[in-house]
Structures are given as C-alpha cells and as structure tokens.
C-alpha cells in the first residue's frame, strides 16, 4: 500500500527520542495518560495545509485527530460500558460534556481488534470505565484511545485567521454540515455556521447562541464556503491515525445512496491502495453498462454548490472511470488528503450498512 505525501505536509516524530524543538513541544503537551499512569510513547503529529479557494466551496476532510488523552486496553465489556485494564485513574465524568465548563465531547477509538477504526461517543465515565452512546462488541485486550472530537472552535480556531462576520447576514465564511444521513445523492446542507461576535453561530438559531462546541465527526467532511473572494489557508494539525479506519457505508433498496466520507489520513490515498475493492462495503461492477458502486470525487475548480463529478467503479480487477474507456486503469487516482469524497452505493435490498476498513501502511 502506498501513500503519497501531498505538497506541504509535515509529519513530526516517529517514536524517536530525538525530536526537533517544535515536536518536543507538541510531544510534551500531548503525551496522553494511560491506564498504568505512565507517560505513553510519542505519536506522530503532523500539519496539513488546506487552501480554501475564495468564492468557492471546499469539501474538507480533517486529516488528523486531536491527540489522544487516554490510551488503554479493554478489560471487560458490558453492552455499552467498557472497563479498562490496569489502573486507569480516571476522574469520574471527566469525559462528559458540560456546556461552559467542560466544552469537549470525547469518543472512544478502537485501535485494534474487530472494531479497529470504529468511533463511539462517550456519554459518561467512572474511574475505571466509560459508557458509550451505543453498544460496542469489543473484546478483551482491544487497544483503545480516547480523543476529543474536533469542534467548530477547535478546528477553526482563531489561530486560523478566518474572517469573522461583522453582520450576521453578510458572512464571509460559512461552515456547512451536509445532511449525511439523508437519503439519495448529493445531500444538501443540514446546518450552517458562521463566526461572528466572538463565537460560532448557527443560521436559524438565536443570534446570541454560541455553537463553539459543535462536534465534527471524524468520518464526515464539512464544507467550508468562502463567500469572500480571497483564499484562506487552513493549517490542520494533530495526531496521525496509525491504525485502521472503519467507515460505515450504507445502501438503500429504493435508489442510489451517497455516503459523504472523510478519511482521517494526512496522505493521499490511491484507489488501488484504498482497500475498497474487495471489501464488503463496495460492490464491484461486472458489466460496464450496469455500474454498481462508485467512488465519486470532487473535481478541481472554483465555485460554490459543486457536486462530485468524477466517478470511478471497479471492474475486471481495476478501477475504471465512468465515461472513459473501461479498459483504462485509473487505480492511481487519489483521494486527496484533506478532501471529502463520496461512495455512491447502488440500490441494494435490505438497506445494508457495511464497514469499509482502511489500513495505514506507509
């Protein structure tokens, strides 16, 4: 599996005791607590610059995580409660969001085991366990990590220098959350946010209500809409996900279904390296006249309200481009780091949801 470094990417640290100054700062700040109370080994941290073109939409996939604050292995499981091995020494409810007091929402990320790559929101915790929003069929010794979700305030922090709205109706930059759970293709906006008067605001909410803590799930892209003509460069920093990613992909019996997805990878991933073909989440095509599932990528170029246009399907052992000669191999086409994409599922009986597992092996 090959990963290509996009222009400008920088990765810091690689389990090495000799680190550059800036990396030392990061490593020192970000060493997570672990179940034994000892300092964990350094992780890889990186920075990925993403340019949001002026007067255009950028479908942003966040390529890095906020560094883990806790790592452990699973000791035992009881439905939605995971008890950790060892001596976690957690503080009760330290991972519970409380508006104005504890502004972060946390999730449990499985780094190994059958659930490797899956994300579960934490709703509560004791000194030894966490309670998840959904039951997790984990097994003992699965490696897990606890990360804060990115939020509007943490991903688009003031350090990014994004323009704030002087007037609520004239918003230079909007962050749009697509309705990813909706049926059909090309989902529309579910919520629209903008920064104004010192906080993130939501279109349609009270003008003085703050939405800084709105979470941005790692497997879902957001759309950065630039209503201003000037470009903006977002420098996204965080921890590189070394383990597998497991993304839910659903189909519908009533028609094609778009899955607007984000790979938490700081590197371009080619279609050949994606692991999609042959996974249970992607139906290969046997007849180019009856294309099954597609990977649909956003073409470059300016403009708002862009829809993904470059569709690829898997046929006869290779990736083909819709509208092109089906004998031409497009396996080297990449899902760009930092850019969202679509898996467009063909109709499928039973409305199934399958997980696509993408592994990291640079």
């Amino acid at each position: 599996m090959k990963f290509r470094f996009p222009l400008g990417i920088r990765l810091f640290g690689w389990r090495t005791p000799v680190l550059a100054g800036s990396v030392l700062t990061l490593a020192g700040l970000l060493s997570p607590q672990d179940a034994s109370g000892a300092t964990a080994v350094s992780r890889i941290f990186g920075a990925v610059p993403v340019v949001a073109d002026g007067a255009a939409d950028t479908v942003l996939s966040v390529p890095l995580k906020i560094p883990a604050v806790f790592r452990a292995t699973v000791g035992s499981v009881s439905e939605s409660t995971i008890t950790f091995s060892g001596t976690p020494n957690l503080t009760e409810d330290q991972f519970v969001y409380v508006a104005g007091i504890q502004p972060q929402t946390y999730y449990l990320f499985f780094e190994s085991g059958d659930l490797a790559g899956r994300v579960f929101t934490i709703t509560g915790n004791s000194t030894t366990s966490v309670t998840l929003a959904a039951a997790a069929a984990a097994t003992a010794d699965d490696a897990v990590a606890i990360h804060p979700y990115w939020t509007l305030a943490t991903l688009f922090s003031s350090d990014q220098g994004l323009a704030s709205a002087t007037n609520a109706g004239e918003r230079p930059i909007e962050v749009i959350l697509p309705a990813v759970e909706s049926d059909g293709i090309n989902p529309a906006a579910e919520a629209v946010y903008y920064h104004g008067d010192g906080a993130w605001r939501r279109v349609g909410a009270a003008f003085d209500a703050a939405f800084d803590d709105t979470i941005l799930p790692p497997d879902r892209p957001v759309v950065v809409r630039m209503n201003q003509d000037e470009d903006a460069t977002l420098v996204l920093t965080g921890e590189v996900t070394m383990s597998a990613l497991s993304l839910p992909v659903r189909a519908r019996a009533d028609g094609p279904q778009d899955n607007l997805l984000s790979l938490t990878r700081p590197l371009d991933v080619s279609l050949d390296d994606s692991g999609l073909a042959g996974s249970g989440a992607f139906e290969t095509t046997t007849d180019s006249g009856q294309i099954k599932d597609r990977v649909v990528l956003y073409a470059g170029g300016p403009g708002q309200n862009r829809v993904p246009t470059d569709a690829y399907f898997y046929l006869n052992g290779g990736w083909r481009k819709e509208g092109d000669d089906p004998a031409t191999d497009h396996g080297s086409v990449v899902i760009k780091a930092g850019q969202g994409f679509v898996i467009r599922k063909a109709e499928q009986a039973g409305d199934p949801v399958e997980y696509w597992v993408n592994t990291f092996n640079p």
Partner: protein
Amino acid sequence: MNNISQFLKTSAVLAFFGLAVSASAGISISVDAEKLQDGSGGAMPTTGILLLVVSTEDDDFVLPTVDEFIPASSDDLILASWDLSDGGGVAGIFSGLASNLSYESGYDEGDPLMLYWFPNATKSSTGPGTGASYGLFRDDTGILTGSVWELPSDGTLLYALKFFTEDATQMAAGGDVPAFAGSAALPLGVALSPVGAPTGAVASNLTEGGVNVMWEDKANNEGGYLVERSVAGSGIWKVVGTALANATSFVDLGTTEKTSYEYRITAMNSVASSTEAVSAALLTSFGRIANISTRGQVLTGASILIGGFVIEGTEDKSVLIRAIGPQLGVYGVAGALTDPSIELYRSSDGPTEPPFAVNTNWENVVYSEGWIPLANAAEIALLTADLGGFPLEAGSKDAVVFLKLSPGGYTAKVKGVGGTTGVGLVEIYDADDAAVLSDVINISTRGNIGTAADILIAGFVIDGDRSKTVLVRGIGPTLGGFGVAGTITDPFLKIQRNQGGTLEDVATNDNWGDAANAAEIPVVSQTVGGFPLETGSADAAILITLPPGIYTAKLSGVGGVTGNGLVEVYRVQ
C-alpha cells in the same frame, strides 16, 4: 383550514416524504432578512410567522385570505415555516434554514419563491385573521438581492436568499431593497396588480456635482423606484439608490467625472417590478481649467516671463500656447513686447536640455517633435477662434506653438527677440474635447511685478458645467527662499470674474495666514504639489470654489512695492 402547527407538520411531512423515497438529491435554502416591519412600520415583533412559499405550477402566487395563510385551492406550497417565538429574538431581523428539501415533493427547479411574514400570527393561528396585514417579497431578477428567487438546481448544497432593505443595520450594513418592501401593511383580500412602468427617463448634470435623473410616474401601486446606473455600453447595471412611491427624480452623487452613464428606472412593489425607462447616455459633468494665461513684464535674464503648467491624466493633451506682444499693443496695452519668442521645456528634462519646441512668429511654424500637423497659420487662426482666443493680426510677430503633450510638467519661457523688453502675455489653451482623460491642472508664472498695467495678471477659464475649487497663490517672500533675487516683499492677490466684459471682484487676500480657511491652505497646497508657504509670510493665497466662467487673478504689491513674484493657479477638484 390549516393552522401554523399544521403547516409546520405539513412541511415536515413533505420533507419526510422526500427523505423516505427519494433517489434524487436535496436542496437547502438559507433566508436572511432585515428589516422586516409590522403593519405600522415598526420592527416586526419576535413572535410573528414567516413562510417560504413556492408556486409549483402557474408561477403565480395566490395571496393570503382571512382564513388561510396560503389558500388550499392554489398550487402554492410552503417550503418552510418559521415561528419567530422559537428563536432569533431580535425584532425586525430573521435568519433561517430550510434544510434538505426534495424535488420529489411537487416542486421543481425554476419554480418561483416568495417570502411572507405575518407579524400578528402565532404558531396556533388558523389564519391571518380579520383585519390582519402581512408582508411579502420576492426578487425575480436578482438585481436587488443577488439571487433570483426561484428554486435552484437539484443537488444544490445551500442556496442563499438575502432580503436586506436599505435601512438594514444588523444583518447587513444596508441593502439594495427599498425600505418599503419590508412593510407588512398589505391588507388581506386585495389583489396586487402589475405595476406601471415609468417612462421618459432623462439624466442631466448638476452644477454642484452629481446627476439628476428624472422620469414620469406611470404607476398607482408602486412601493417605490429602483435607480440603476451603467457605464454606457457596458451592460453592467449597478443599483445606486431608491426613491419613494410617486417620486419622479433621483440625484446620483456617486458619479465619476467625464464618464458616460445610462440610467434605468424600475417601478416596484413587493411582488412585481416593471422597467421601461432608460435614459440616453450622459457624459457626466466636469470642470476643467480650459485656458490659463499670465500677463506681465518681459524683461531679460531672470526677469523674463516664465510660465509653468502641469498636465494630469492618462491621455496625451493637445494644447495651444501663445506668447503675445504686438497684439497687446493693438488692444491698447502700453509698452507691449514687440517681438516675443516662446520656448517650451519639459520638467523631466535636464537643466541643460534645449527647448523641445520654439517659435518666434505664429505664421511661420516649424514642425518638430510633438507638433500637430494641422498648424499652418490659417488652421491656427481657426483653432484659436474655436477656443475663444482673440485673433492675431496677419504679419504680427506674436508666437504660437500647438502640440500634443503627454502628462507631466512643462515650462514656457517668453522672451523678447534680441533682448527686447515689454509687456507680454503667455496663454495656454486646452484644445481637446472634454472627454479626453487629461487636464491642465496648474499654471504658475514668474515675472516682474510692477505697478498699474505692469502688475502680474493670470487669467483662467473654468469650463464645463460644474463648479471647481481652485487654489490661487501670489508668492513673493517665500520665493526668495528659493534663491530668486529681487522678490516682491508683500504681494496682494485679487480674483475677478469677467461678467459680460465687466470685471467683478470675487476674492482678495494680502497674507495667506489671514484667510478664513487658512488652515486648509497648507494641506491643499501639499495635495496639489505646491511648495509650502512660510508660516506667517506675507505671501497671498485664495482657496475658493468657483462656478464655470472667466477669471483673472491679479498680483500686485501692497503700497506699490515691486519685484519678482510668482502667481499660481491650481485646480483642486
């Protein structure tokens, strides 16, 4: 009969229907509005109802009745309903999102959209109710709001509708929608008829600046007028303002000088607009110094007559420059110079560079660099007459050059051939059409200031139909600081206007620091490129706005003192 809750439920059902079976894409529409009003013109309360409605079939909207917000018999559908008591919380403004609408719900791309607001309705209202009033708005062209109010193509992530009236202050810093459009004063049961289009648009320049646009009001149901401006031929229209109902004129103060504009007038109410009135192209007003001249003693050495002038702009400028002596004598000026010569220098040339144009006899021109090849004697006579200059007699020894000069600074030296001396006059005429984007903006003449007829006299003509502000300076003491010998110690400046051959005093000044607007003079001097006058000096200066006309600036000495001096005329704006 549906109440608002049912409408909300209906919308939800529609959305759910779309979500349940759609294989198509969705669309989302954001709506931002200010300033929404109630029926009395106050800010709409935070308890009213807003509806975003689409006409699904006939592209027409059936208006509310006492019992129904949207008549059930119509093809209109509610896309989104908002109860302001649910959020927002600021009177007169609104921001909302209609999320993930489906085209499988009975409407299609291109269907027109309308925003309704009912200030007195609540979520439990079954209809507007007897005596209620409402407001409505749509922008069918996108001129006012930037977006055409119709459904976008399927799959549009977010379509933004902005409804900002000109009195918006919170959602936007003013909008292009006339304020009346925010009113909720429409009575129920009254049909809105098409609005009559204005006719007879005429644009004219105002002397004080700006353009006055007039039209004929042909509507009896307009809410107001939208005034747009376009650089003639560009096809790009920009909203420059609005006018109230029954208005027939508008003053546009945002124009640029020497630009051809067209104006388009649209009668509007909240749901309809009608445009017929488009004015003919108008070259906007301008003011320029079309002619400047200085009369003075032409002596020898440092006391020859030296005129400097500046051409500012982006295009080359045709100028006619004359050095008059003998012809002054014909007009009765005593001691006139008998045989003047004129030498022209560029300020950008070095001090040892020879003049790039020379003439000693207007009937014997010799072409050289920059000369315009129409300048034989007959043509110069015609041109001079056209520019308003007095004629030169055949055989006179007055000197003339006629050139096209690039923007920059120039110096014209007037001498007596063979060292002769006498009273001379140097004149510079702007010989171009006013549309040329360059102007002569300054003349400065250095000469000897005597007494009586031998004082230094500068003349200038403000052309066009617009007043101009000028700075006129008469400099003596400060000039001495530049090494000029024998400068006049206390100059006195007077501006007169020629009114039908009679000179009327306009302004005088002895010491510039005593002027009422003395504080502005150093600032303006710096702006126009003049060197600073010494604080407390006896130099004279007048900063004044003058209407088009013929003017004279006379520089004499207080108490009859004499000496070398400098008179300058700057066009300020």
